[in-house]
C-alpha cells in the first residue's frame, strides 16, 4: 500500500463531488482486503440565509499550485501521525449548488481506532491551511465571501 501514499494526486476538481463518485471510490477499495474501517467526511453546501436571502450556491476559486502543495503536505502529515492504509481528498472548484458536495475526505485503515481522528484532523487542516475561497451566492445574484472559522 506504499504506492497509494506516494502517487501524485490532484485534489481540486471542477464542480461538485457526485454521490456516484463516492460509491466508485468505496467499491475500488474492496480489493484492499487488509482494510477493516473506512471513514468518510462530506462537506455539503448549506442553504443558509444571508440578510434574509437563501444561499443558492458557492463558487470556489483557489491558488491551485499552492493548494495542491498544501494538500500533499497535509496527506503526508496524516500518514506520519496515524496508521492508515490509504487516504483520498477531493475538493471542488467552480459552482457547487446548495445540497451538493464540495469536499470528500476518505480515510481507510486496518482498525477503526484512528480513522475518525485522522479524518477529523484532515478536515481541520484543509479548512485552516489550503488557499481556497468561496463566494456564497444568494437568490438575487448578490454574494458574500465565506470565511472559515476554527471549530
Amino acid at each position, binding site marked *: 500500500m506504499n504506492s497509494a501514499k506516494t502517487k501524485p494526486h490532484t485534489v481540486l476538481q471542477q464542480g461538485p463531488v457526485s454521490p456516484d463518485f463516492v460509491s466508485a471510490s468505496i467499491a475500488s477499495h474492496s480489493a484492499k482486503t487488509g482494510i477493516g474501517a473506512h471513514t468518510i467526511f462530506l*462537506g455539503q453546501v448549506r442553504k443558509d440565509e444571508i440578510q434574509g436571502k437563501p444561499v443558492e450556491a458557492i463558487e*470556489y*476559486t*483557489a*491558488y491551485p*499550485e*499552492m*493548494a495542491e*502543495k498544501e494538500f500533499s503536505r497535509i496527506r503526508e502529515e496524516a500518514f506520519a501521525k496515524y496508521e492508515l492504509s490509504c487516504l483520498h481528498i477531493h*475538493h471542488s472548484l467552480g459552482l457547487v449548488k446548495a445540497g451538493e458536495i*464540495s*469536499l470528500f475526505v476518505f480515510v481507510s485503515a486496518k482498525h477503526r481506532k484512528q480513522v475518525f481522528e485522522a479524518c477529523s484532523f484532515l*478536515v481541520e487542516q*484543509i*479548512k*485552516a*491551511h*489550503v*488557499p*481556497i*475561497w*468561496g*463566494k456564497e451566492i444568494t437568490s438575487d445574484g448578490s454574494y458574500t*465571501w*465565506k*470565511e*472559515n472559522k476554527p471549530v
Partner: protein
Amino acid sequence: MKVLFFGPLAEITGSSQLELESCGTTDKLYELILRQYPEMKNKSIKLALNQELVAGNMNIQAGDELAVMAPFAGG
C-alpha cells in the same frame, strides 16, 4: 515584481496579478500593499512566497512568486 491576488482581494485590486515595485522583504511588501489598498487592512491578509505561507519577515529574490491571500474558505 509580480504579485498574485485571489478571491476577495482580486476584487479590491481589480486584477489577479499586479506588477509592483520591488521592495526586498515581505514586511515591506505588506506595508506597500496596505498603503496602496487600505481596504485590505480589515481583511487579515496573509502572504505566500513561492507557494508557502510567510511566517515572519523573509527576503524576496528576483523571480520569486508572491501572493496575497484573504482568509481561506475551503471545505
